[in-house]
């Protein structure tokens, strides 16, 4: 094992305020865990020499020789509440963060475009920052489940994406290296259909077609959700 491992650990900086908050929250959680474990010890549980595989807390064993992890089984998981797939609040905050970052990063992104894309398209890409569509957010908040993939697919709102120019993803989109390109294509295709259905819905007049368009939108959302689950 090389002695000089990760380079990024060499330059260490003091934790920022956000990180301090996280540290504080973690400490409070640890205090809660300690208190619960102390109560269990006084009840006659046995403190084992092993740690939980998931969270690293020391395991307890009750009188029936069943192992018990205080933090996994009693307290709300520390990590789950940040997972947008499981928590609506986290999803909303993630969307907002991306939005903020896209706004700040889009101007910096513009100079990186070189070659093929003309300046007009680049300016178009920089100007038309894809705002999260309201129905996406509402769907996520109401359903409370898998969020539609964030509008990090920065397709500008032109109906037909220019094939030559693959719009650069803004740096805010979380690099998910696990998503295979096939899934990405599938997502794009579904999104395109979704967009088209939405446009149609806006302009439709008959009840029957509206209902059908809505069901199409629902099925598109479902397929996007399953695509998201697949990618995780």
């Amino acid at each position, binding site marked *: *094992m090389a*002695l*000089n*491992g*990760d380079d990024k*650990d*060499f330059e*260490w900086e*003091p*934790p920022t305020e956000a990180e301090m908050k996280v*540290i504080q929250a973690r400490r409070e959680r*640890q*205090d809660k*865990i*300690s*208190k619960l*474990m*102390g*109560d269990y*010890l*006084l009840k*006659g*549980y*046995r*403190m*084992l*020499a092993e*740690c939980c*595989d998931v969270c*690293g*807390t*020391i395991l307890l064993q009750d009188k029936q020789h069943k192992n018990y992890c205080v933090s996994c089984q009693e307290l709300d998981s520390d990590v789950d509440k940040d997972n947008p797939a499981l928590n609506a609040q986290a999803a909303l905050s993630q969307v907002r963060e991306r939005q903020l970052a896209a706004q700040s990063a889009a101007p910096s992104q513009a100079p990186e475009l070189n070659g093929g894309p003309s300046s007009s398209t680049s300016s178009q890409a920089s100007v038309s920052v894809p705002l999260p569509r309201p129905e996406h957010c509402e769907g996520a908040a109401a359903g409370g489940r898998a969020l539609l993939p964030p509008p990090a697919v920065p397709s500008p709102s032109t109906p037909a994406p220019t094939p030559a120019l693959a719009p650069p993803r803004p740096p805010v989109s979380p690099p998910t290296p696990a998503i295979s390109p096939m899934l990405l294509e599938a997502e794009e295709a579904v999104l395109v259909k979704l967009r088209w259905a939405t446009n149609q819905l806006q302009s439709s007049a008959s009840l029957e077609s509206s209902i059908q368009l809505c069901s199409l939108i629902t099925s598109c959302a479902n397929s996007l959700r399953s695509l998201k689950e697949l990618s995780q």
Partner: protein
Amino acid sequence: MCAFQGAGMLPVEHLHLEHVLQTVCVLESVVRRSFGPEGGQVLFTQDTGRAMLSRSGARILTALRLEHPLARMVVECVLKHSTVTGDGSKTFILLMASLLRIIHTTACKEPNVSHAYNSKAAAEAAAARHLADKMLAFALEELHDLIAVGVVPYGSCLSWEDFTTQTQLQAHANNHCVQNLLASFFHSRLGRTHCDLMSNLTCELLTHWEFENDLPSSSLHFVKDNLAALHTPVSGFPISCSRLMKGQVIHRDFAAPCPRTDRQPVKAVVFTGFLQPKLLRAEEVLELGCGEEGKQRNIVQFSAWAERSLERVIANLQRLGVSVLLSAVKQSAAVLALAAQAEMSVVECVSEDELSLFARLSGATPVTDCWMIEPEHVALLTFCRPILLGAHRYVHVAFHDSEERVTVKPCSLVICGLGEGQTDQYACALRDAIRMLLSTWEPTGVTATTASERTRQSNTSTSFHTDDQIPNAAPFKQCVLEPGCVIAAGGTFEFLLSHALLQHGSSCSICDDTMMGVPAVCQLLANALLSVPRQIYSHSPRRFLLTQTRLLSSVQNHSHPFSLAHKEEHNTILIRVGGDCECPLEEGKLTKHCCREADVSPKAFMSDSGLESVSCKYQVLLAVLQCVSSVLRVDAVLHTHTALHSQSHRRPNASWDGTDDEAED
């Protein structure tokens, strides 16, 4: 977390700082609620249905089921500490947890970036280790002086004479006496109801066992060593039935109903071996030699000869007028029969401690060879009769007065309790009180060598006696804690010491901006110390702030704690702090005189909340720092599987040089 290493195939678990912290925090949450005068009690129930209430930290910690090696190591350290000082197990855990928390915070904020470590966790661990070592070094060198200067002047020095002449100073306002010290100890251990009773009993016991012309600590040593023989637990009675009995109680009954003898003095002999040796034992060969006329002897003749010799022994005893035989072993039926015939009572299977105490008090040596019984083996007793204590019958002896032990009036304490558990609890509290008094009156000047010895001893499981012999070494520095130094309870020690630490840190001339400097260490230690009074006053944080401000303002107002006319005497006392450690009789009287004459100590310091021993607190702090630094050195745990046990047994392995993950210079 678990990594398999190499060909050894032993699972190695790397311990991170968080694990250590979590383990100790769990132990802290267990003892925290029983801490302090307002702490609660823990109800222990056994599977047999037996229930017991206790507040003793050592008892709570031993009752926990802990398989985690680090937790067990910490509990062992606590137990070893409490066998020496008798008190402070919960304080130990609280201090340790707060120190670890502070070290963890500091190490995370500023890890040692100068070394190239592979990961942030390793850097944090190294920083924590350095910090703990630095704190320990500081404590070993300078803490003693800080306490002598910053805390001791605000306390008082109890002298042994105060305690023995307590009956004369009946209602002294300040009540600086050993009784108060004991009462506050028993208050924290047993509760408010019985603390006075127990402290009175203990004081009476100690008064009786005082040796003339000797240091008070020697009588405390004697009582501590012989405590098992000096007290009798009796269950089934309320504690108010506890009393002192003259003489010694031997915890055995007579082997046969003894005839009442009215002659005085009663003569007794102590036997350590068999009067009639067993003839045939397993794996032994008895060889019968040839007798007169070349005839082969047989076993019948041999046993007849053995009986005749036994009769001769008994006749010898009768000639000496002995009427009581005390034996360490179980004698044979023939001996009992012959003794009954000769109107002698026999007590069998007496424990060695009791026999040695008996021998010491009576001045008679035990008989080793029963064919040679001389008058010096005969002990003179005033009486020797059975006594019924609770459900058991014991033998009660009283010694004939001899010139050697004029001041010692042998007495034995009968401790009553409603149930067995309760009685046991009172007896343990008594034992710990004696230990606490001993460590108060014999504050050991801890040198660096004894400190390192203690670190090693606290890590390995040594027997009780090894730990007990902490040498009463010469003082390391000039000033030594006076014997009998006490201070008001309720967190005063911690407040004063943290204030002194902060002042020392700020006045330190070393301009050391790094984390490892002395001012930083003082600051961290001062913060950690405050966790103890914070826990004491956890029910009312306002009282914490009030007490703190009151004490600190008094400290600042009184640059000299004794600011009245008796300044010269007090100056001599303070100068004496820097001098020798002996407390001659005249100066002892001086202390008493000064304390009694003028209300010198400001009321801020001598509150009604009782007294605490300064040296016990100091030893707790040192022990905690040593434990913390040795616990932080552990960075890998090897899980070993032993063949004998079905479950795997795990032992911690302190790897001093780190694993191969770290790049150390």
